[in-house]
């Protein structure tokens, strides 16, 4: 089956009901997308499907056919995406395990709403658990990313 991952077409040999998460991690080798719970409760596995956030751990690859999959690796080659820059400026990460998912959810939020309120951020990211408790910095960084984004071409 063919998947479009980060702008590249990949042929994968996997059953159609195999979750996208494990295809990405174990077959394609993109390990930036994380396994946290396997039941769409923690958000660590968040990727984009045609720009919309999606829990890859419960998404069979058959549901992704013909659509564009974006993972954390596809956001920027060098951490220069406004959300990544904001995360750097505000030193958001701790253990870092949840952060791929946090960032992918934040990017999707900003694409839909360029100046989100605290409530917007809380609502959009409430499905992303951070066991280290970086929530305050995540919220501040989303605001900062919104500013950085305005200063450049909208991505």
């Amino acid at each position, binding site marked *: 089956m063919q998947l479009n991952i980060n702008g590249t077409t990949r042929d994968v040999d996997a*059953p159609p009901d*195999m*979750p996208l998460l*494990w295809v990405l*991690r*174990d*077959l394609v*080798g*993109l*390990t*930036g*997308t*994380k*396994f*946290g*719970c*396997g*039941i769409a409760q*923690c958000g*660590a596995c968040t990727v984009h499907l045609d720009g919309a956030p999606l829990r890859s751990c419960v998404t069979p690859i058959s549901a992704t056919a013909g659509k564009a999959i974006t*993972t*954390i*690796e596809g*956001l*920027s080659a*060098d*951490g220069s995406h406004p959300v*990544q820059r904001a*995360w*750097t400026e505000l*030193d*958001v*990460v*701790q*253990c*870092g*395990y*949840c*952060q*791929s998912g946090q*960032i992918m959810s934040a990017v999707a939020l900003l694409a839909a709403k360029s100046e989100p309120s605290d409530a917007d951020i809380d609502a959009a990211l409430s499905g992303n*658990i*951070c*066991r*280290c408790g970086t929530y305050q910095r995540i919220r501040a960084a989303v605001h900062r990313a919104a500013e950085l984004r305005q200063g450049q071409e909208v991505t």
Partner: protein
Amino acid sequence: MTTDAHPSRRDFLKTGALLGGGLVIAFVVPGARRFAGAQPAIRARGGAMFAPNAFLRVGSDDSVTVLLAHSEMGQGIWTALPMLIAEELDADWSKIKVEHAPAAPVYGSPVFAGMQITGGSSSTWSEFDRYRQAGATARTLLVQAAAERFGVTPAAIRTENGAAIAGNQSVRYGELADAAAKLRAPKTVPLKDPKDWTIIGKPTRRLDTAEKITGRAQFGIDVQFEGLLTAVVARSPVFGGKVKSFDASRAMAVPGVRKVVQVPTGIAVVADHFWAAKLGRDALEIDWDLGPNANLESTALREAFGRLADFTGAAAPETTETPPVPPWLRDIAATKGAAAVRAGNVARGLDNAAKTVEAEYAVPYLAHAPMEPLNCTVRIGRGKCEVWAGTQFQTLDQQLAAGITGLKPEQVEIHTTFLGGGFGRRANPTSDFVAEAVQVAKAAAAPVKTVWTREDDIRGGYYRSAFVHRARIGLGADGKPAAWQHTLVGQSIMAGTMMEAMMVKDGVDATSVEGVSDSPYLKDLPNHRVDLHSPQTGIPVLWWRSVGHTHTAFVMESRAASDGGGARP
């Protein structure tokens, strides 16, 4: 402030020979000298390398690589420990690289009996001297090399930003690395006066951010290499249960499943990838002997703990259960209490109180639930076993892997990855997730990454113990506490471990009562006492970040809030 950091000639030669060519030296720093014979080989990765000791290397490309004796699990030592070295070295912060150290005695913790372990919120304070000394030793040698190059005395050299400077001459550390490697380390090295610190104590951005926001950071679960298989293990649904028999035929029929092997903890399904292994595990048919804890259940445990809380002092309470009582419940009921604190006469204090309040708090067993489920990768080769894990306890991992594979500890190489959270779970007295993964790789005769599902992780034990607190507090006429009787009931995390002798005194595990026995709310009360019952159950318990304070702070602050003003709860 000076320190002795003089390597023996033997160490110098030994290490030079290990590295071939003598460009690299490595010696142990004070406090770890007794482990000198087990100095790890430090491999030079291209180009000349000056390794003044086991904690840093200066490359001819000006890089300064700091080796972490502790594991980065979110607490920030990937940045904090390099800051200590960079401060004394006057390093160029932009040239700092960081690696987890291999498992070796030289990296033993100064405060955990030489064991390589990350815990007790100790990494920064316990390494504060050792890492600064490492940086200062390297600087001293580089200064000496610069002095020889410039034909001046070392006193004429100043250092800044990764360079040695004399007058208008300047040389980068990388250019001095070769020459410095040939010098003998001084007997003592001066450390900076804290008022001269330019890095320590200054806000500094994390060094691990770039990797962690791009998906490049390698956690244990991300380890991949050619030929690596993935296992998911079926473990007993009850603690202490054993496999009676199993049928693997349906599991083997799952595409991608390669092998099904029995290990001491259960049945491992080994497959090409996680998903096949998980489906295979789901398809296993296992007949379990559930063992003595078959009927263990939370409600009865809670009630049994509550009954113990009725008893103060050392007397074993009488069993009030009507037979038949399951053995585990009988054991709990027979638990003897122990006195943690005695001050004055609490009974009299309570009698004389204007008012007494009584309260009970119960907290449940608590899983650590690190964001990254437990996992460990093992490759066993000829005379060598490699382990990749986000681990907090390299010393025990190495010993257990050696025991299981029949190798010597130094033949076991531990590659510590980033930890997707630890909270104590990744250091435990049996290194359960590492030992099991070694068993799986051995039984499968293949390199295997054993991955726990989230459900496995939550059910897998090593919890913060459930606790029941019962307090009777006598209030004075002013409404403030005047007498305090406090009884705790909960499992000891130290009993039966190598730390028991150190941490359990007269039946009291200090970590069970910390936050109550030493509470500032109690210390000035003339009459107070704290009792502890430590029932044993079949449930494995463990330190859980902040340990006793996870329950005692909750209880004491709640009491203080409600009693401090004399209000009833």
